[in-house]
């Protein structure tokens, strides 16, 4: 039986820090991870010695990243754990930190996502199930097929979908941590070459490297450690699911697991889709943004592209979707991505997002899916003082 523990023991995000997302470089994952963690500790006004546990989300960097990072912050003997859940690795690291505090096991926990650019082989392909298209269906091709189906079902045009990338590149141009920081016109977004099907390069996420970190704390720790509660963002829900029963699948597996995970998060948080001010959504490919917004009920079924065209999803619109630039512009280094979404949402809820601030942001939702059919959804609430 599923139980919520966040209601009885509140958890707050009290520190955030990032190392910019970037193309492959000679910078080690240790340098990037330490940079993000130290920034998060500084933001929280804490030291590493205040941290009771740490979770490292990484999909590509290899084994033993967690103790290696912890070692260089000053050995304290705290439990550290590396978690992997494909694209949702960082989201799951955040969830584990939240649950460690919510359970009462500890009062302060850190979550850091870190990855280098290189991709190791994935475990799905190691199952060795031969099909008719071996070696042909990579991620862009897989999502180009979903794009074709999405557009056919709605009678929509590729230009409408290209507008997703235009919005997110515009937002990313305002984000100093984004891998792509250049606003793009619709003509630029739609310009060949095509990566697969209708998907152009600017409609596909850049998979690079970087790091993002957050510190979460209990209300007891806020008092004991003198943490500035006016900047503490409350975690209202933490939901994580894998692909549902075959008979519950409606649409794609990604849409189905998103719908059910979001339903759990809305139930736990008491926040409804229409109450959201900020949504950071998994948009590795442009089609994913409208797919998941509709699956979560943030947009009415078949209405996401119309909402986008009307400006409802812009910063300053009905709900700011991916004000960070999303995966399309901010980037998708994998391990850091879900944690970086939390960092952006915390900035928005604190009112510290600068030029990309969504006015009056009170509730934020962050969403990631992962290869193999997993989904993580968190709902965050603004500090009570705002």
């Amino acid at each position, binding site marked *: 039986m599923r139980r919520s523990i966040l209601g009885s023991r509140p958890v707050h995000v009290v520190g955030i820090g990032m190392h910019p997302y970037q193309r492959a470089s000679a910078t080690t994952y240790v340098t990037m991870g330490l940079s993000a963690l130290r920034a998060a500790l500084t933001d929280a006004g804490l030291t590493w010695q205040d941290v009771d546990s740490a979770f490292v989300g990484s999909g590509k960097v290899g084994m033993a990243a967690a103790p290696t990072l912890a070692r260089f912050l000053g050995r304290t003997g705290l439990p550290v754990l590396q978690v992997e859940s494909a694209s949702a690795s960082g989201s799951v690291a955040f969830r584990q930190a939240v649950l460690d505090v919510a359970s009462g096991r500890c009062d302060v926990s850190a979550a850091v996502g870190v990855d280098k650019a290189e991709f190791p082989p994935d475990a799905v392909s190691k*199952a060795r*199930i*031969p099909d*008719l298209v071996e070696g042909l269906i990579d991620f862009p*091709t897989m999502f180009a*097929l979903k794009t074709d*189906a999405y557009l056919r079902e709605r009678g929509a045009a590729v230009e409408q979908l290209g507008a997703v990338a235009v919005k997110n590149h515009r937002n990313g141009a305002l984000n100093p941590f984004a891998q792509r920081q250049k606003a793009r016109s619709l003509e630029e977004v739609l310009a060949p070459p095509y990566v697969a099907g209708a998907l152009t390069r600017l409609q596909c996420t850049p998979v690079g490297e970087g790091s993002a970190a957050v510190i979460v704390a209990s209300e007891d720790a806020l008092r004991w450690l003198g943490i500035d509660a006016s900047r503490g963002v409350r975690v209202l829900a933490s939901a994580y699911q894998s692909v549902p029963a075959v008979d519950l699948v409606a649409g794609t597996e990604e849409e189905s697991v998103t719908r059910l995970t979001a339903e759990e998060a809305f139930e736990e948080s008491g926040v409804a889709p229409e109450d959201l001010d900020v949504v950071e959504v998994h948009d590795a490919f442009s089609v994913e943004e409208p797919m998941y917004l509709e699956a979560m009920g943030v947009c009415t079924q078949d209405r996401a592209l119309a909402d986008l065209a009307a400006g409802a999803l812009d910063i300053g619109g009905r709900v700011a979707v991916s004000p960070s630039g999303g995966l399309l512009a901010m980037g998708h280094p994998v391990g850091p991505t879900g944690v970086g979404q939390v960092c952006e949402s915390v900035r928005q809820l604190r009112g510290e997002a600068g030029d990309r601030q969504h006015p009056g942001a009170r509730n934020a939702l962050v969403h990631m899916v992962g290869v193999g059919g997993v989904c993580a959804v968190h709902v965050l609430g603004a500090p009570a003082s705002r």
Partner: protein
Amino acid sequence: MNPDSAPKTPAPWRSGDDGPMLTLGACARCGHRFFPPHGYGCERCGADELRTEAVKGIGRIEALVDVDRPDGSFRVADVRLDGSEVIVQARVAPGTEGHDLVTARLDEEGHGPVVVFTRLEGDL
């Protein structure tokens, strides 16, 4: 099943008298059918007693894309097999369009025999 050995993984197709026959996986307990076939376990009910069914590859295209890569161009599609819940990803022949009724053929040119779906005139 011998716990020390990997479950037998059937080939996804075999030659038939009238073109390739696709191999569907089928659960002996709940009847769930799937593609590509494997011997790991039923995604619907978890049973590890799986069998196979040979079917003629006829279906309708649900999504289709062209891909150009440095090592060659190809067209692939999601094909929903005739009257079933099973969707097959496969190469499709040039000239095939979305929603076309298609059938599996064997293409023996290039890098050996591969299954390619081509347009089938008429209706199911």
